[in-house]
């Protein structure tokens, strides 16, 4: 168990909710990293950082938010970095009588799929990507009545898992999550259908131990980490 | 005479000791039966059981041809057709006087209902208060409305639990007289609880003296007041003095007892012998400064204490036994008696009722 006094010497990382599983693996692979991760919605995390939340590093799902923090003077532009590129995946329940991997995006038109969950495009990058992909595939008009919006990709996934929705457009990484992978059918949405989802992070100006923070970022961007990211459905970041 | 009302119930409340109440009354006892008894005698319990507001644990309640309660039966208050008026009237504060009176009349058609309300309000002198809210009424007016409300339904039995106790004396006397008139006019069987003897006398046909849940004595009001059957009843009925005495001889309703060191003429039921108690009401004792020389029945004694009671003065005497006399203040003034003086207490033999001393 962690005592508060100890906790203060550790690196505090605020991370977008979609990094849960990959970061758990990463930290397990690097037991020497003294890191505490707080997961949250990226927007909430930015609000909290703005109000002085004691985070050293912020890992966003959406690179644009790191620029926002720079604009607010909370970090240096040079402290920004990219650590992965996300993929969008179409996910549907295994029980559904639709062959999703075969049909690809057109599976969404199937009458058995009555509700499609995506993350809220107003603030979630995968939500925006999902909308782009739908319109690139010329499915937007047909699917508009079927769409429902989760707060984030995890909630979109929950909607499928609870049966309340039939399919979801989520991050590929989420479809590899423990306990999820075997419950549904997956189709990786071609990257061409949406702008790249560059996952960016930033070392905050208030970091107490910038050296440790930089070391953590190095680990995050190391080849070993890339392998772990790859296993979770992430591509290496654009340079 | 057939029994009209039979109550024999037991209550075992969740809190407090179990208690039981018994009463039976015949047709001839009505219309107005007064239940009289000390605090805690079970008078309210009896009325509430009759109204269906308290549910006994065991026993039975029969009213005329109906069984309201027994091991297999329970008639809820809604179906008993009784009128019940509690101490404070319990008027509905959100309804005006007319609506309160109309509350129980929803079975009538609207025109009939309006007519009935008007009739009852007039009868109870409440016409002018028709649209007043209960909160704006005086205590006496509220009681009148409560009575009007329960009578408007023409219930088959009227239950009144100390309906006048919230009123002051003049208001009480007036409402009492009115009630007596209404009940007679309507021929409505009524049970009225009181612990004021004057009220019992003024209003009742039959008096039932209740003590610890049992009827000690019941009968025509005057009869019961004048001839209590035992010492406890006599005390409950407000007999001031009970003189322990020995019956010397009794015949034809009259007798002579030895009380203290003197003989006293009394009235007595035939066949009474041995140790007896003589009941004397303080009002029936006439005081003289000197014993009159006409050989008047009574006893000499010494004034022990004098108490003012408004228009009356109460004089405590020691005649070898304690005796109290209550006489008009004015009459007492003429006697010029003071504590310690000798006096003679004249007692009418017909006013000295005798009961066995067990």
């Amino acid at each position, binding site marked *: 168990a962690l005592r508060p006094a100890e906790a203060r010497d550790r690196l505090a990382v605020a991370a977008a909710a979609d990094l849960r599983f990959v970061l758990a693996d990463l930290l397990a692979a690097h037991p020497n990293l003294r890191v505490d991760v707080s997961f949250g919605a990226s927007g909430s995390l*930015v609000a909290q950082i703005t109000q002085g939340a004691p985070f050293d590093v912020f890992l966003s799902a959406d690179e644009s938010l790191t620029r926002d923090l720079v604009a607010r003077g909370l970090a240096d532009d040079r402290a920004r970095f990219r650590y992965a590129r996300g993929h969008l995946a179409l996910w549907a329940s295994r029980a559904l009588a639709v062959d999703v991997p075969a049909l690809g995006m057109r599976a969404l038109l199937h009458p058995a799929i009555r509700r499609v*969950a995506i993350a809220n495009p107003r*603030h979630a990058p995968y939500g925006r990507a999902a909308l782009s992909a739908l319109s690139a595939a010329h499915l937007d008009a047909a699917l508009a009545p079927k769409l429902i919006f989760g707060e984030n990709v995890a909630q979109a996934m929950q909607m499928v898992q609870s049966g309340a929705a039939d399919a979801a457009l989520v991050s590929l990484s989420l479809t590899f999550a423990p306990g999820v992978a075997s419950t549904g059918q997956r189709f990786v949405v071609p990257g061409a259908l949406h702008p790249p989802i560059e996952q960016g992070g930033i070392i905050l100006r208030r970091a107490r131990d910038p050296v440790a923070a930089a070391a953590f970022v190095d680990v995050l961007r190391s080849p070993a980490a890339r392998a772990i990211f790859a296993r979770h459905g992430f591509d290496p970041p654009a340079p | 005479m057939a029994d009209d009302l039979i109550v024999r119930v037991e209550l075992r409340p969740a809190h407090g000791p179990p208690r039981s109440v018994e009463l039976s009354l015949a047709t001839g006892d009505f219309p107005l039966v007064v239940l009289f008894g000390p605090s805690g005698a079970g008078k309210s319990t009896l009325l509430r059981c009759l109204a269906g507001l308290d549910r006994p644990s065991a026993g039975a309640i029969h009213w005329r041809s109906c069984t309201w309660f027994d091991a297999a039966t329970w008639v809820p208050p*809604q179906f008993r057709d009784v009128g*019940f008026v509690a101490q404070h009237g*319990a008027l509905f504060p959100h309804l005006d006087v007319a609506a309160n009176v109309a509350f129980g009349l*929803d*079975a009538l058609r609207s025109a009939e209902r309006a007519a009935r309300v008007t009739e009852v309000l007039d009868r109870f002198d409440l016409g002018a208060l028709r649209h007043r809210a209960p909160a704006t009424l005086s205590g006496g007016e509220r009681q009148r409305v409560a009575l009007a409300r329960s009578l408007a339904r023409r219930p088959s039995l009227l239950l009144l639990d100390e309906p006048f106790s919230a009123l002051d004396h003049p208001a009480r006397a007036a409402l009492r007289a009115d009630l007596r008139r209404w009940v007679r006019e309507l021929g409505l069987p009524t049970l009225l609880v009181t612990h004021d003897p004057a009220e019992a006398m003024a209003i009742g046909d039959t008096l039932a003296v209740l003590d610890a849940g049992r009827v000690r004595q019941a009968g025509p009001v005057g009869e019961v007041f004048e001839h209590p059957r035992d010492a406890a009843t006599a005390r409950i009925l407000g007999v001031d003095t009970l003189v322990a005495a020995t019956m010397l001889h009794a015949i034809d309703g009259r007798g002579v007892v030895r009380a203290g060191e003197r003989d006293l003429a009394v009235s007595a039921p035939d066949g009474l012998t041995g140790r007896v108690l003589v009941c004397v009401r303080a009002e029936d004792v006439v005081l003289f400064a000197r014993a009159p020389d006409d050989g008047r029945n009574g006893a000499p004694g010494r004034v022990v204490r004098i108490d003012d009671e408004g228009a009356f003065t109460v004089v405590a005497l020691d005649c070898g036994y304690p005796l109290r006399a209550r006489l008009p203040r004015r009459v007492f003034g003429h006697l010029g008696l003071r504590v310690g003086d000798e006096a003679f207490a004249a007692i009418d033999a017909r006013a000295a009722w005798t009961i066995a001393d067990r």
Partner: protein
Amino acid sequence: MDWIALALSLRLAAVTTVILLALALPLAWWLTTTRWRWRHVADALVALPMLLPPTVLGYYLLLALGPRSPVGALLLRLTGTSLPFTFPGLVVGSVLYSLPFAVQPMRASFARVDQELLEAAWCLGASRLRTFSRVVLPLSRTGIVAAAVLTFVHTLGEFGVVLMLGGNLPGRTRTVSVAIYDQVQSLDYAAANRTAGVLVGLSFALLALTYRTQREGATRWPTT
């Protein structure tokens, strides 16, 4: 300012309030009068939605109403639709969530109705229903108004249940509290402030007005 969301919230609050009044009146009266030995358990159950994290409540509601649950499956079979992500679904969630806010003020005012008045009504031949509607209800007016206003305002402010159960569909399930959350998430703080201002102002005005009309006599305290 998201007027569509506000309109939806007002509609949701209105529908919920109407349904809850109908549900809570008998429930509150039952709780007030029952001598059932497990009454305290029922009381605790009614209070629970007020005290649990709303997102937890919303999550379990989603499970309970989803097509995989027996209830959800039955509903789907009977009506052809499932409740989550629909306005009726939100109504169900809100009704459950705001239940204690409707029941508790009613209970308090029911308990204050003088027993003697009930007895008077019975002895005047009034049935239970008549006693309830003609005596208990009018005498509990302030409590019922308070219940309605609390329910309405609480439903306006509802967030967790709606977020979980609603699916954030503009004009259908996107209420004003979710809109505020979205605006904060999109870092559109100015819009969030405006929306929150309208919501808080409306709630506050409704409450203050209600309490104003309900000014019962203050307990007197010696003046100095």
